[in-house]
């Protein structure tokens, strides 16, 4: 099998700047999104995710401007997410050059949006982001940046979004996000094995070993992280070199 495991830096965007919070709070400014994106592309990032965490009425416009800027400057695929809630939003972003969009809460609140977007723009265009938290024995889906718990389990929701036409799932473990203590490999493997579409693992990356674990034990197709890349704790080229040495297929 030669399909490479993907390394995806995630850039949280607020007011046009890159930020990253720890457990969704305490945001730190980490720079210009396009410059960051370019640097990552040159270092060997396989894809980029831009998550806009501003919540203004002008959102659609700022997202489309961001998509246009990124698309014209980068030669690797990228996803844009954050507050996308309608077919119109999706269309605007497609026309601005986004390769994929990521939808989280809006898809849960209106699941037929998944069917509609997949039908109109193709499954490849749609990443469903899921934030989940382990509560007692179940992994429960949370909405609105992790603030609102639902009554749905991660596995049930993963299966449903797959059936409705999602092209990929971006799973963030709220228990692990920002801890740098490793990904949620056990539940990650369960999600990966219960759906037919690729899974991007997010939340908890702290070292190169964590990526090795999530690709092997966690059976993830891609690993996503933010701060460890932004603050230079792990270089993407070094990470890929490490993974290759350990027998993981990566693009170098």
């Amino acid at each position: 099998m030669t399909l490479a495991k993907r390394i995806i830096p995630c850039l949280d965007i607020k007011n046009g700047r890159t930020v990253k919070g720890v457990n969704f709070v305490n945001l730190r400014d980490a720079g210009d999104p396009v410059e960051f994106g370019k640097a990552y592309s040159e270092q060997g990032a396989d894809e980029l995710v831009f998550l806009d965490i501003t919540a203004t009425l002008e959102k659609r416009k700022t997202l489309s401007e961001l998509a246009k800027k990124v698309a014209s400057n980068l030669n690797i695929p990228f996803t844009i997410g954050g507050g996308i809630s309608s077919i119109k939003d999706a269309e605007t972003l497609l026309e601005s050059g986004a390769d994929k969009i990521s939808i989280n809460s809006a898809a849960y609140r209106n699941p037929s949006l998944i069917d509609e977007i997949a039908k109109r723009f193709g499954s490849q265009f749609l990443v469903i982001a899921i934030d989940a938290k382990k509560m007692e024995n179940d992994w429960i889906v949370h909405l609105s940046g992790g603030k609102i718990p639902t009554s749905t389990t991660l596995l049930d929701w993963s299966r449903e979004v797959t059936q409705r036409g999602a092209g990929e799932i971006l799973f963030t473990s709220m228990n692990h996000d920002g801890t740098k203590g490793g990904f949620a490999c056990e539940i990650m493997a369960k999600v990966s094995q219960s759906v037919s579409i690729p899974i991007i693992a997010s939340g908890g990356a702290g070292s190169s070993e964590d990526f090795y674990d999530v690709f092997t034990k966690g059976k993830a197709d891609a690993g996503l992280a933010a701060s460890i890349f932004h603050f230079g704790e792990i270089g993407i080229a070094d990470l890929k070199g490490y993974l290759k040495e350990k027998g993981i297929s990566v693009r170098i």
Partner: protein
Amino acid sequence: MKISIINYNAGNVQSVLFAMKRLGIKANLTDNIEEIQKSDKVIFPGVGEASSTMAFLKDKKLDSVIINLKQPVLGICLGMQLMCAYSEENETPCLGIFPSKVRKFLFTDPKSKVPHMGWNLIQDLKGDIFDESLEGAFTYFVHGFYVEKNEFTTATCDYIIPFSAAIQKENFYATQFHPEKSGSVGERILTNFLTI
């Protein structure tokens, strides 16, 4: 040099236009028949669904225009699949430039997710858009259907089964992967196409 990118109801035709700009090439995104016919090179990009896209091309009379082009034409992803005879995606008769069939990837093993998404190797390269330096290079794929290997195959990728990563016949070139999203490797392939 005049480059036309065929504009139709497919996903992300913009990204090819942006890729051309990065290479310093001015290209036109157009569905104007005369403009397409007068171009030195034509790119037929796209992601999307086969039957609705074929219906759209027929409606705009672009189907017969594409088939009869004599200049180098590059089909990308869905563009490549539509250049074939038939697609299993909603049982769609396609343009028939290549006699090949487009088949659906069957999901049988959790290790091989469908769609085939991400960076994979292209091998056994031949034809004008490739050169030796590209043998075994990673390119970016996103697709749930594939073109079977056939006499026109100029690059092979192995995912679930070996399939055509690229095909070429006379002035028609096509890649299943997205050169416009495949980093410097993709830029080299696009440049090779532009210098045919």
